[in-house]
């Protein structure tokens, strides 16, 4: 198992390095001079040259790449060109919104999706299964921002239980901050829960025809007991993959919901940075997303190893 984790960890680090190199190269090749952009079109060539020197733009690419990596390693992600603030601080402030939002949405989608999937599979072919799967199909089809608008209408406008949008920072009022994340979290979670329910059901139905389920029944279990004790864990393998993909999607894909609820999240920060050509910020935010997604995959892989003894041994 240690060997298996070490291999996964090595793969994770290599992925990060390659991703960093690609991001660096792409942005470096883009036309446009950041120094000239900062100083404006009226700047003299001398002041542009001075700023280039100060920013280290004239150094060889490999040196700049190394400095960039080293800086990130120490927590220094550079200065945002448009906002004149440390990128690390900007991203940290946004992460305080996006990360809890994503985790909350994940937990909600798991709590709703998995039990419904199991319930449908246990009643496969019966009316309950059909009803649940029709609802799940609708849940997959409806976009999350529309859920967001419906939820706002019900809980904020009609019932007036929750705010319609905006965000109170955690240090000012944690309860208000959490209330601000409830509706967007739900809006994000519902389509994901529908996908999870469908995947869980399909995986369980596949497992239910396996020989070892018949063996378990031969030992004296009812079908339900056999599925519960032997089926669910085997069915969890494909679900684990989907969970990892969903987490990755949520962390980077919350921008629409952030806009619906006026949340100062990571998605909006990146969108603004791209439109304003704030390359330092774009570069750092992208690498942080890559880090988050790769780390999720690493965790999924390691979880796989814990669930499936065949994987640990092959170490593949």
């Amino acid at each position, binding site marked *: 198992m240690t060997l298996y984790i070490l*291999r996964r960890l090595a793969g994770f680090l290599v992925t990060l390095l390659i991703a960093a190199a690609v991001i660096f190269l792409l942005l470096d090749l883009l036309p446009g001079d950041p120094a000239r952009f900062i100083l404006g079109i009226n700047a003299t060539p001398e002041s542009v040259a001075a700023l280039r020197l100060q920013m280290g733009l004239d150094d060889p690419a490999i040196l700049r790449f190394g400095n960039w990596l080293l800086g990130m390693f120490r927590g220094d992600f550079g200065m945002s060109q448009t906002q004149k603030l440390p990128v690390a601080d900007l991203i940290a402030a946004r992460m305080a919104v996006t990360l809890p939002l994503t985790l909350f949405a994940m937990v909600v989608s798991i709590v709703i999706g998995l039990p419904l999937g199991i319930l449908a599979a246990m009643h496969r072919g019966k009316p309950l299964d059909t009803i649940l799967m029709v609802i799940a199909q609708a849940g997959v089809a409806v976009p999350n921002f529309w859920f967001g608008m419906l939820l706002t209408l019900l809980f904020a406008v009609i019932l007036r239980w929750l705010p319609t949008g905006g965000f109170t920072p955690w240090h000012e009022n944690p309860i208000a901050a959490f209330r601000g994340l409830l509706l967007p979290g739900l809006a994000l979670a519902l389509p994901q829960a529908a996908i999870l329910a469908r995947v869980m059901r399909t995986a369980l139905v596949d497992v239910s025809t396996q*020989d070892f389920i018949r063996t378990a029944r031969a*030992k*004296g*279990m009812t079908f339900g007991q056999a599925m519960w004790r032997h089926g669910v864990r085997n069915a969890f393998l494909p679900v684990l993959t989907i969970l990892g993909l969903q987490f990755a999607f949520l962390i980077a894909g919350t921008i629409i919901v952030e806009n619906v609820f006026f949340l100062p999240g990571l998605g909006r920060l990146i969108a603004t940075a791209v439109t304003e050509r704030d390359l330092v910020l774009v570069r750092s935010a992208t690498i942080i997303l890559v880090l988050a997604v790769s780390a999720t995959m690493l965790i999924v892989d390691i979880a796989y190893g814990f669930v499936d003894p065949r994987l640990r041994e092959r170490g593949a």
Partner: protein
Amino acid sequence: MSLVEIENLTIRFGGRPALSGLSLAIARGERFGIVGESGSGKSLTALAITGLLPDAAEATGVIRFDGKLLPTDERAMAALRGHRIGIVFQEPMTALNPLMRVGAQIDEALDLADSSTREVAALLQEVGLDSSHAIRFPHQLSGGQRQRVMIAMALASDPDLIIADEPTSALDVITQRRVLDLIAEICDRRQMTLIFISHDMRAVAALCNRVAVLKAGELVETVPTEDVLRRPKAAYTQALVDATQMAPRANHDLSDQDLLLSVEGVTRAYSRNGLFSRRQPPLMAVNDVSFDVTRGEVLALVGPSGCGKTTLARVIAGLDSATSGTMTIDSTPYHGADLPREKRGDISLVFQDPFGSFNPRLTIGKSLAEPLRLLPKLSPLDREQRLIEAIESVGLDASMLTRYPHEFSGGQRQRLAIARALVTRPRLVVLDEPVSALDVSVRGAVLDLLARLQSQFGLTYLIISHDLDMVAAMADRVMVMEAGRIVEAGSPKTLFADPRHSLTKALMAARLPDLV
């Protein structure tokens, strides 16, 4: 009083009967065999007794266990299985939960049987496994070991009845014999009733005192085993008995034939070193093997599972490459995958599994035509002609080329696999366990076909098998393989009459006794 009584049992799938009006009574302490071909309804009978029929099956009739009707309530039926009936299924590879240690799986059966006295270790010892196997996962055990675990699990509740559904057909000959002996011994010791289901009359005869013969869902006859063998009444029973006999077909005069294939010092080693793992010696799947194959010869390669015989066949056919050593076919030297394209048509392969070896989404005609890519110069008309010639040579009709694999029986599919091997007009055909996945009753016909094709097209065969009877009937020469090396070789007559190597002796001893 009978332990199991079946009266007028009929099982239908979508209105179509798969078992019609079966009545049987199995006495306490009896060893009862149910024999028949695939689709005769023998496994359905076992599933009906245990209440494990698939949802789609509609069953009518009466089944009594120990004088009482089978409970209709799922919980009560599950409890009956858990306490009084043990079941051993056919597929040792998939019948165990891959994510759970086998000890825990046996322990679960003990729990379900409310058994407080018996222990996992004791059960493992009873089936001939060391108790240290309890902490292993199923994939860490061999097929035979897994089947022993299945038997241990079936014994956990100290059942009155044990049902074994083709428990050995996925195992090699030596393991098969050991598992059969184990079942017989346990039934003796525990005075258990046994229902043994098989397509092989010899296995049934070795184990059972009474046998029911099923054909296409109907009972042909129920007779004491000795009577089946000495004076079978029904013609069908006689046919099943005859099918266990294989008439010799070989003995070719090879004195004036030239060399077709020569194998010199071929080794296939698998490295076991990973990025982080410590140095280990490579696994020698095939270890310094040399032999010659004469044109028109039938050469057999026998050995237990994992001895390297299939790896060697793959190297010869160019699907894998030798780590060292060379082979020469028709004075063209090669090492495996470097077999020149124009020579690939000269060697064909027929695999063991006639179900897995056809793409279910391609018509038979398309599947059969695939090897013809090796002969790009063939005109469309010639290609068509080749297909028709191939399918007719295996005794099937050219109109079947437009059908799909699922429309054929196992025996027909193996004929089609042979037809596919013939379309390129090869010289050497490598047959990997060509009949072991087939019912005993259709094996004879496929072997007859192979013998006829051989003389008709002047083919050379390399047959890979663990079935000594088949080899004795087909081969001019036999090589015995163990752990990657060839340990003994000779004509089947002399080799089997006077085996020298311990493996050959073990293979001979594992043969089931002849019926006639």
